[in-house]
């Protein structure tokens, strides 16, 4: 029996190391149990919160903010279907059912913005409990607070009431929240930004591309102006103007970041950072704002890449006759912002088509560029300040700020002097100065001018579809449901509504 006892012993011993044997942690990926322990972890995590901004500004941001306005339209290509997701935005026919829409661009905006929020929450929740360099911690916290507020500010303007997540979700429970009132969302945004401003360094002390104190002040001022808290806006913005961190570039053409140069220049307050190459950090938006189809030669003429490919589909974000007409005679910004190219594949005899020029720069690889997207720049800071002052009755103080922007554009000082006229002058100035920078829809909706501006715009399109890039093909006319949805807010994305029990 002794032999067997030894055997038994061996058998049972085999189980002693069982626990180790069965614990297999992923070797090529970190898990949350081991992360958020060091300064470097938090810096990487806040960096990760910036990442969705790239996708947001390559896509949904201009679709929801610019194409959905009188500044740009699509160029109908009858050979392509499945284009309703962009068409619906451009011609104000976003379908609504029970307050939700299947529009995929609305969905993409929602998801990218909440991704920023979730990543910011992942940083903000544990950061106070981990000890590391206070200056670095303040910087990281400030950036995360800014990014969360930035995303909520976009969401609340798109949708009104939205779920308000300020801590990471633990699991399936709590992954969806009830809609919070607009006011509550704004309270959180203002709280976050107010906290962020003192935590963040000035632009000169910050790595270019990261959020700065000036950016946080500008965003907060934008929020206050949206809420018509004019005095608060003035107060928060004044230190940014007096900080000496920012100045207008000498000419409008010099304002915009190039493929690898002129990024985060002295006029830049906050811009989305793209980088050309195979690292996955590239911009593609230059290729989205094009009339189509384009031949290889036409694509090469635009970007001078080494491997131009033909482009087809339905072109989007084509400057409308309205925006072209909005530039005053002699406005230097017009030719910087828009040019006219030959689109040989365009049906009919008129091949000349306007196209956004201001962001364009040569680069090496097809559909992969490093041009940054300007979100806030000093010209807008001046116009925001002018608006805040004018609305408080400080019209005289507002006019010089407006004129700084006009002078750079080669225009004479404004002739407006009454508060109402200056208000209108600022509104018009914003349109041309910030054309194609995704400001137009927000300006129209926040000033309650949807009916006044969009309705006649729609009539012009229906009356003269050829002027709005419809091809001279029988039947190729605006659909019969265009300009039927003029709501201030977008419906909630249907795919999210299906899952959330709250909307």
């Amino acid at each position: 029996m002794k032999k067997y006892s030894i055997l038994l012993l061996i058998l049972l011993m085999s189980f002693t190391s069982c626990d180790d044997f069965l614990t297999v942690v992923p070797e090529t990926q970190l898990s949350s149990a081991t992360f958020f322990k060091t300064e470097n972890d938090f810096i990487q995590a806040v960096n990760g919160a910036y990442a969705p901004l790239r996708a947001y500004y390559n896509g949904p941001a201009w679709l929801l903010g610019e194409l959905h306005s009188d500044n740009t339209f699509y160029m109908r290509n009858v050979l392509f279907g499945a284009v309703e997701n962009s068409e619906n935005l451009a011609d104000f026919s976003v379908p609504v059912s029970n307050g939700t829409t299947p529009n995929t661009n609305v969905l993409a905006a929602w998801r990218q913005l909440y991704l920023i929020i979730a990543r910011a929450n992942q940083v903000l929740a544990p950061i106070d409990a981990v000890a590391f360099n206070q200056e670095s911690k303040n910087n990281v916290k400030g950036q995360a607070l800014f990014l969360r507020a930035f995303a909520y500010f976009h969401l609340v303007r798109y949708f009104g009431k939205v779920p308000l997540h300020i801590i990471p979700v633990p699991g399936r429970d709590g992954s969806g929240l009830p809609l919070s009132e607009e006011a509550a969302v704004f309270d959180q945004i203002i709280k976050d930004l107010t906290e962020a401003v003192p935590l963040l360094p000035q632009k000169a002390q910050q790595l270019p591309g990261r959020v700065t104190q000036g950016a946080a002040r500008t965003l907060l001022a934008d929020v206050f102006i949206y809420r018509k808290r004019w005095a608060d806006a003035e107060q928060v913005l004044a230190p940014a103007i007096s900080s000496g961190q920012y100045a207008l570039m000498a000419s409008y053409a010099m304002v915009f970041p190039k493929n690898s140069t002129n990024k985060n220049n002295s006029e830049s307050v906050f811009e989305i950072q793209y980088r050309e190459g195979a690292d996955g950090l590239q911009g593609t938006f230059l290729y989205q704002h094009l009339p189509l189809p384009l031949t290889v030669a036409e694509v090469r003429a635009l970007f001078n890449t080494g491997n131009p490919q033909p482009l087809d589909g339905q072109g989007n974000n084509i400057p409308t006759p309205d925006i072209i007409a909005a530039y005053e005679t002699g406005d230097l910004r017009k030719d910087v912002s828009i040019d006219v190219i030959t689109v040989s594949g365009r049906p009919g005899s008129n091949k000349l088509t306007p196209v956004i020029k201001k962001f364009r720069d040569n680069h090496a690889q097809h559909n992969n560029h490093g041009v940054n997207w300007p979100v806030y720049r000093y010209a807008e800071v001046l116009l925001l300040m002018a608006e805040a002052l004018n609305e408080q009755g400080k019209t005289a103080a507002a006019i010089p700020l407006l004129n700084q922007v006009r002078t750079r554009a080669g225009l004479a000082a404004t002739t407006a002097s009454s508060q109402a006229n200056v208000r209108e002058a600022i509104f018009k100035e914003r349109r041309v100065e910030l054309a194609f920078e995704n400001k137009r829809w927000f300006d129209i909706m926040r000033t309650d001018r949807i009916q006044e501006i969009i309705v006649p715009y729609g009539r012009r399109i229906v009356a003269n579809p050829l002027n709005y890039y419809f091809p001279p093909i029988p039947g190729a006319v605006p659909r019969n449901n265009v300009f039927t949805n003029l709501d201030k807010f977008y419906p909630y994305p249907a795919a999210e509504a299906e899952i959330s029990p709250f909307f």
Partner: protein
Amino acid sequence: MNNHYLSKMKIRLFGFLLLMFCISVTSFGQTQSVRGVISSEGEPVPGALVIVKGTQRGTVTDIDGSFSIQAAAGETLVVSFVGYTTKEVAVVGNQTSYTIELALSTSNLSEVVVVGYGSQIKKEVTGAVVSIGGAELRDMPVSTIAQKLQGRLAGVQINQTTGQPGRGMQVRIRGQLSVSGGSEPLYVVDGFPITGDINAINPDEIEDISVLKDAASTSLYGSRAANGVVLITTKKGKAGQTNVNLNVFSGFQKVPQRGRLEMMNAEEFAQFKKEYYEDAKQPVPSVFQDPSIYRDKTNDWYDALLQTAPISSYNLTLTSNKERVNTSVVVGLFDQKGVVVNTDFKRFSLRLNTEYQLSDKINIGVNVAPNYVYDNTPRTDGTRGTGIIFNALHTWPVMPIRDESGELTLFNRFPAETGNIFAYPNWVRSAQELTNETTRLNLLATTYLEWKPIKGLSLKSTFNVELNNSRFFFSNPSTATSAINQAIPTIAASIRDNNNNMSWLNENIATYRNSIKDHNFEILAGFSNQHFRLDQSRIQADTYPDDRLLTIQSAVNINRGGTFNNVQEWSLTSVFSRFTYNYKGKYLFTASARGDGSSRFGVNNRWGVFPSTSVGWVLSDEEFLKGNEKVSFAKLRASYGITGNNNIGNYTQYALINNTVNVAFNNVVTPGAAVVSLDNPNLGWETTAQFDIGFDLGFLDDRITFNYDYFVKNTTNLLFAVPIPQESGFTNFNDNIGEIKFWGHEFQINAVPTKGAFRWSVNANLSFNRNEVIALADGIDRVYGDFHITQVGKPFAQFYGLKKLGNYANAQDLANSPVIPGRSTVGSIKLEDFNGDGVITFGGDRDDRQIIGNPFPDFSYGITNNFNYKNWDMSIVGSGSQGQDVYMRHLFSTANLDGVFNMVRRAGDRFRSPENPGAGIFGTTVGGGNVTGIERDWPNSNFVWDASFFTIRNITLGYTLTKLPKVIKSARLYASAQNVFVFTNYWGGQNPEVSMQNNGQGDGGNLSPGVDLGPFPVPRTITFGANINF
């Protein structure tokens, strides 16, 4: 690990061991040496098994059919051999010599069947097991085992989803499915659950295959058993014999004309284009004004990709079982070109199986099987980016394949005014110039040491290793691409993937077998550890200055997103035991259980226990049936048990950080990180509880046998990435949820209608499988697949879309029917307003979509006929499925009514005007994408077509030579035809078994089955071969 569980395991294990060692050996009567000769029809039967009933004493007959064994008077000798009826002979008094005549059997009830961790006499099997011998499959000229098994086994559904050599076989046992876990069965080779590709194994190495279907037979494989288990036993020598066998065949493969997707020829296409512009009241482009100029000038891009391809196979097998050594050696070479140009599949294989009897008490065995598989398949399957065949199908037939000088064109593009919006690369060039090769070096080694310290007790330790090294290399030069809309030159690119994996398994098993009077029992207990590790590295590079040198270092770009290394690892610790008991061989009982601890399971849920039990009753041994002239055998059996599916991913339980969420600051790449999944420490296996009841009958001395099984199983705790609101920053939460019920009937019949000089045997099977989704997660009653829905209360993965009612016939019809605002016109597709809200909508949960088809058959069946007449033999194997639909996904391009692609011929007969409404399948072209886009972009019933089929898989005709030189024992010549003919009304392509695969390796997206995107065609193969025994 949960200590409570562990201690329970220890106690249980200890108990079993104690039981094993403490049971005393029963005594039996005085034995004597009994000798005998076994023969049949005047010929000795070597290799027959002789055992003394109810004991462990047994032997096999030698080459002369003689044997010697210890037996006492009153005991019974049981003589069995494959192909013969088992015979029992009583040992009488002092008679020591017996001449036993075996009758040729028509059934195989007396066969020994391989079951989990052992073997059983078929008669005593209580689970649902089907098995087939390798010899029955030998002549089929195919590369994989699964192809050979198609249609052979009731309850085993095998579909060839693509014709790519060595790939695309989808095996489902009893219709088992999972939402996101794997659904392929567990393959066990010589006792070793393998992790690599079963298709790498040379089918000629296989002695026999058993498929375990019910829980009673699979539960010993615990958390890996829910999808069924396929046990493969490799070749061993027959006792006392040395055999050398050469099996060669060679032939060719061709894609039959019949069944191909009918596309427009050049003239028809030009006619369509002409009509398109006429109907749109636009000027007809000059190239289409006279379609007749294209008569007989069709460029058939699909046909241009095809070739007649050779196939050949050489196998040399040596088996020897003499003295104390049992050896078998199988050397194989399989060489197949594909019917798509530049397709190549080669396998060099070697197997060396050796068992050595060190003493009466100790055996050791070593099986080593290295093989090398090379395969190159152009990117044939897939959508516009990767599917050359799909792209070729819808390329304009007016575009030249070759230029005037006979050179392949680079790419084709007509002027924009012709409506050509895509650049079409030359697909023949793509097939020729793309490299898409995998080379795999596999080694499977199983070893054991068995010690039989006392009679009836066996202690066996095994150590098994599986090594796989695979290298994948993809490249395209600047002159070729698999993607449509790429002008040439394109960007030259390469992908290199290197996988090394290693799996080892140690098992320690004690088996004790004894009989006390009429009580026969076996106790098995064991424990095992298995570990798997995969090291993968992938480098993706592009933009090469020189097409001749697609090395990593010569690339301008290393693609960050496609360059990574990856480790996948799992561990599994198990304890298992089984108790088998029968009384007089007629009342049968088995109980078994396995406990699995897996690294894949969450820390709170690390161990799973999988028990089962089964009973059987051999009615034909009862007095009331004994000696019945008609009914020769009858058995009832029933089983119940619980099994698991642990194919839930290795790290699914963890909240993972993606540390490549990089950003640019100051135009410099800066590392970023983000939490990309939520953790679930409770995550576990999928659980399947299965009940099975069945019976086996034999009539007329088992000349006709019939088997029936009914099963019902409930799979719960399905691994499911439960979609959660993305306001959380996450898309889903991995959880075990829901319930799917499966049930079905299986029938199998074997019969020998004629015996004698002309012998005909037939084997037929029929399976019905049904399923219903009982529950998904709380608050979630549906999951969408690509064109599918999996919805509570309905069968799994149904086709989902809008229902086509026709086309709007005229203005009045349009005015009086629900329409799509802004899009519907006269002649456009008319869809059903399923939700009754007056408009047609698509998207969201409350739109007009409904279930429009079922990818699963009503039933599937197979029939095999074997004929023998003198020296001639012939077999015909056929199988089919009835009632399933296929989603003809390619129609979104091949019936794109905007004329941007070539189209199916049927689209010629479309709606042109209220007076000329066409066949009703395809609508008007007028109005452009805004109108035509509905028909192709919104999944609808126009895509769904019945794909019932019956395929004659194989016909083989053989002739055995009789006058032979002495060195040759026997020789047989044969001709074999594979995929002889497909009977079907399916018109979407030549393979009604099609199902688009996610990974091309057989286990596609469970939620999206039955999608046809024009895959690699399945050829007809004709071969000639010889089996020669030396």
